[in-house]
């Protein structure tokens, strides 16, 4: 049986069922939890299967033989991303269960989260550019709805910039899709890669690359295009903030990886260089923005940007090791960033606010939470032997090698990355000092009678352990990332795997 469609179908069918089963109850929650655990098992099995066979799983939908119909392709990179999105979904669902009782839950929130994850998963597994557009729209429409569900007038106002920038992004994406069809006469990613091999020097391919870089740069939050992000993410509840900050911008990074490694030819070095410089500026401006904020969610939202910079810098370097480092960094970053957002939620629960002027006194009452925060914050800043260090280290090494072989200007990017790491440490220490070490502020003493924080700390510790395991077992994780990178960059293997797939019927004549 071909299971390539299931990572999309499971959350999608769950969402539809939840729309029918409207009333929130504990039974409904258990059902959702079962579905989410099923998604995690499926994603884990996909990684194992593809890692051992080294072959992508291809499904030609409706029996249309590629390149005519829509294909779903799960290669190792896609399987890793699927595992991460299901893991984040698990964290989001568990965190909400411990923080909100089912009697006051909005009936639409759970189905919308499932639709969001269905869209994200479809983005990962699709092998067709227009289907990618549709997946983006499923994801975005669910994210609009979640952003404004139960929102007050202030929240709605902050959601408007998010909506408008994404509308422009969608229109540009649609144009890029039309443009790709005009150039290549096909929208199948494998077929485009196949055709583009013989069009290496065509300026239209470069133009398409630039357009896609802008479109996905908006989604990922790259330097001149990121202004929608830092103000819209803080309006989300903590559990959803973790899911959004973990997955939504990383979808942009994933699609950049997919288009520039698998789809477009390697000769677009100009576009790669542009991406690297955009990444350098993103790191610096993102971390400076984080320093300027004084509430936890605001600081963390800006840190998403500076960390995106590292990943896109790795894509811009465009060597196989750099792509592997990028995948490693994505794995590390999604878990660490989501955990930090959850810790922000726990701080808010304990202190009643996450404004750093009013928080304080948490180390005395919640040392486990403090240790978790310290581990994740140090990991984000890149202190060895935590997971963030290995990703950063590999990216630095690749950038220095580029600096020695290609041009000295790569050293500026290395310097920017080091500076961003140090400033990250600074702003993380700010949260540490203000929320954990400072004595409790009058009127905002930790509310220990509210027992929700115990469950929250349990969920946070779970992710903390995963993050520690990534850091201490970096060798094993990096081998998986390395294999995913070599599979993503091996265009011939991808083209061969997709175009040799057969539907049920005979191949239709062209």
């Amino acid at each position, binding site marked *: 049986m071909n299971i390539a469609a299931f990572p999309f179908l499971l959350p999608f069918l769950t969402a539809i069922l939840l729309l029918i089963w409207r009333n929130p109850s504990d039974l409904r929650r258990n059902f959702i939890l079962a579905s989410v655990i099923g998604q995690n098992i499926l994603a884990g099995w996909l990684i194992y299967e593809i890692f051992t066979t080294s072959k992508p799983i291809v499904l030609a939908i409706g029996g249309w033989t590629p390149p005519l119909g829509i294909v779903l392709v799960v290669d190792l990179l896609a399987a890793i991303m699927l595992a991460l999105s299901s893991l984040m979904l698990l964290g989001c669902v568990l965190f909400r269960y411990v923080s909100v009782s089912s009697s006051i839950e909005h009936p639409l929130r759970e189905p919308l989260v499932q639709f969001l994850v269905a869209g994200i998963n479809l983005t990962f597994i699709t092998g067709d550019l227009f289907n990618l557009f549709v997946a983006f729209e499923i994801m975005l*429409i669910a994210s609009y709805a979640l952003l404004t569900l139960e929102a007050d007038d202030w929240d709605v*106002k902050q959601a*408007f910039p998010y*909506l408008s920038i994404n509308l422009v992004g969608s229109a540009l994406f*649609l144009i890029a899709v*039309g443009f790709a069809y005009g150039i290549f006469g096909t929208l199948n990613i494998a077929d485009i890669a196949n055709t583009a091999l013989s069009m290496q020097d065509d300026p239209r391919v470069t133009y398409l690359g630039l357009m896609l870089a802008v479109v996905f740069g908006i989604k990922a939050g790259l330097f001149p295009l990121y202004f929608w992000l830092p103000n819209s993410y803080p309006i989300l509840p903590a559990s959803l903030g973790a899911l959004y900050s973990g997955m939504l911008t990383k979808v942009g990074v994933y699609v950049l990886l997919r288009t520039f490694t698998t789809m477009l030819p390697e000769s677009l070095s100009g576009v790669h260089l542009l991406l690297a410089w955009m990444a350098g500026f993103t790191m610096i401006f993102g971390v400076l923005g984080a320093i300027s904020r004084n509430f936890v969610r605001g600081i963390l939202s800006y840190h998403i940007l500076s960390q995106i910079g590292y990943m896109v810098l790795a894509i811009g370097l465009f060597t196989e090791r750099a792509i592997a480092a990028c995948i490693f960094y994505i794995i590390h970053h999604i878990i660490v960033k989501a955990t930090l957002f959850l810790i922000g939620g726990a701080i808010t629960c304990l202190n009643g606010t996450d404004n750093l002027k009013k928080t304080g006194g948490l180390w005395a009452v919640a040392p486990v939470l403090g240790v978790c925060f310290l581990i994740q914050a140090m990991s984000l800043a890149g202190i060895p032997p935590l997971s963030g260090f290995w990703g950063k280290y590999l990216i630095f090494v690749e950038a220095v090698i580029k600096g020695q072989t290609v041009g000295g200007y790569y050293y500026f990017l290395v310097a920017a990355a080091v500076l961003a790491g140090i400033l990250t440490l600074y702003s993380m220490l700010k949260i540490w000092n203000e929320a954990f070490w400072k004595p409790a502020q009058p009127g905002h003493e930790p509310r220990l009678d509210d027992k929700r924080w115990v469950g929250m700390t349990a969920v946070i510790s779970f992710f903390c352990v995963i993050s520690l395991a990534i850091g201490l077992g970096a060798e094993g994780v990096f081998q998986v990332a390395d294999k995913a990178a070599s599979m993503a960059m091996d265009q011939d293997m991808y083209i061969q795997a997709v175009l040799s797939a057969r539907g049920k019927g005979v191949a239709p004549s062209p």
Partner: protein
Amino acid sequence: MVLETAILIGLLFSVATFLILQKSFVRILFGFIILSNAANLFVLSMSGSPDGKDGPVVLSDQPMVDPLPQALVLTAIVIGFGVTAYLVILLYRIFLDHKTTNIDELYAEDLFNEAGAEQVNFEIEPANAREAKEGGS
């Protein structure tokens, strides 16, 4: 036919850009509608010049225009329609909350700074705010 379509697409894009950069909500809304239509027309134009070709409806001896962009544009129109409906409701809600349709007035007083952060509901989940108001049901 190709040249006229190209000019029309360019015109629509420039009008849309102009409208989106205005200060009034209503104009921004119209700008987005025109923008999505311009993008749809662009995709449609990728099926090439229809001169001397049949529509891809029934088999005939004549060559047919490429049907794929037409299939794509149908999907894109539906998606654009859904998003526009959402945008209309969102803007109406903002208008009801703030009694203004001017972007400058709406975002004038509060950038998301310290003062802005204070205004945010700091509860864990919005639902908890309701619980607090109702005295913990």
